């Protein structure tokens, strides 16, 4: 297993696409600065009655889709690039145990996703709080120790996206199809679900992958947003949210493993 892990790690770090995706994921920190700065300037100009009506999604939640998307695509590419080039055959000739190959890839992209995700989330948090200073921005005032569990869970969700992307790439054997599926899981399906008639918008929305980090730690924010990509529902108790998150790792990987074993390479 060690040999497989080190081989997959070498593959991941020996292509430029990996560095490009990590760089774009890290650009969330820059985006956080670019979005927070004008908000801070605007805040300072507003009279108290306007500030009282001010609402804001915590910036690290608002921007976590950037690393989620990038690492989801990284997961897709880790396997779809092998199908696109035909490299999958030499890979499986060297390692006939296909499940081992999938597991090693999952571990490697999951680890890359976790490190990148945590770095991007903590970076966006740090940069936005530094700019906001001691201004009483709604949802942006709690200190780091209080936010820590949620920030860690947001970073973790990035790793889960990487693994889901890998499974989708392995199942579709196509970069285009895999990326479309990642975008569907990240944006398209959650947005459609948010427009379902109640209570189904909340019940189904609760199991959408982007909605899980806040539910994992029982965090609730009143942002007034109930539809669209930044609507967040709070429905599942943390225990159930963790179970659903685990299912997002296990179910797609298991499906990909079955397909990988059954199909001719």
């Amino acid at each position, binding site marked *: 297993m060690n040999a497989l892990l080190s081989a997959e790690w070498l593959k991941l770090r020996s292509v430029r696409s990996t560095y490009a995706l990590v760089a774009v994921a890290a650009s969330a920190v820059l985006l956080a600065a670019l979005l927070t700065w004008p908000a801070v300037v605007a805040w300072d100009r507003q009279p108290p009655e306007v500030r009282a009506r001010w609402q804001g999604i915590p910036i690290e939640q608002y921007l976590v889709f950037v690393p989620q998307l990038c690492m989801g695509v990284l997961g897709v590419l880790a396997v779809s690039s092998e199908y696109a080039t035909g490299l*999958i055959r*030499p890979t499986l*000739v060297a390692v006939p145990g296909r499940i081992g190959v999938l597991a090693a890839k999952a571990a490697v992209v999951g680890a890359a996703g976790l490190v990148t995700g945590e770095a991007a989330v903590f970076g966006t948090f740090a940069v936005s709080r530094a700019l906001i200073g001691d201004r009483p921005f709604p949802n942006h005032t709690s200190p780091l120790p209080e936010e820590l569990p949620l920030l860690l869970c947001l970073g973790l969700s990035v790793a889960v996206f990487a693994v889901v992307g890998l499974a989708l790439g392995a199942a579709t054997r196509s970069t285009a199809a895999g990326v479309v599926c990642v975008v569907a899981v990240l944006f398209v399906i959650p947005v459609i679900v948010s427009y379902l008639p109640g209570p189904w918008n909340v019940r189904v929305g609760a199991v959408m992958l982007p909605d899980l980090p806040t539910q994992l730690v029982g965090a609730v924010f009143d942002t007034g947003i109930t539809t669209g990509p930044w609507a967040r529902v709070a429905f599942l108790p943390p225990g159930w949210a963790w179970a659903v998150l685990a299912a997002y790792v296990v179910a797609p990987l298991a499906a990909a493993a079955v397909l990988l074993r059954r199909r*001719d390479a």
Partner: protein
Amino acid sequence: MIEIRDLVKRYGRTTAVDRLSFTVRPGRVTGFLGPNGAGKSTTMRVVLGLDAPTSGEALVDGRRYASIRGPLHHVGALLDASAVHPGRSGYDHLRALGRTNGIGPRRVAGLLEEVGLAGAARKRVKEFSLGMRQRLGIAAALLGDPAVLMLDEPVNGLDPEGVRWIRGLLRSLAAEGRTVLLSSHLMSEMELTADHLVIIDGGRLVADSPMRDLVPDGGSLEDVYLRLTARGPAREAAR
């Protein structure tokens, strides 16, 4: 040794390989011939455990490929020289393959020297010519110093010096007692390299015999091959 026994492989309604049986023995170069779509590549993929046979079996040294641990130390294969990530360097490509079978960077560096890629190995493969990719694919096949080699069209894209090099390489590997299965459409090259021929057509065995028995003195392999694989009346007449 490679043994193909009653191998059948169907893709949907298409039968790619139809009750094929033959044995590839060590110590000689066995040429694997057949028209496009005859089932050569399918047979090789089944041997390597990439495709599952519909029925029958393919064994390497008496074992199914999937049951071999560290398979690169037993079997080396070149199926498609373009099966490399274009953005990865040749060196990293070989190192990643080698690591899965416990093959270290020294062996990789030595092989790159042997196949004449030492100078280009740090370049990304997208900058490689077809001939360089063939050399990289041959290096990948030789990684684990295997006793069984299967090469699908390794000569394509090589320059005359490269063609002569691979001919000598395959002949010396066979002389060392290894099993070498070589597929190619280049009849003149096959005539110079192979000792034994397996010819298939439409997924079935057409010929399995030593080169000297198949090709009479003064005759050409090309004539024999075209007669054996001709469709319809010509083939019936040839029988």
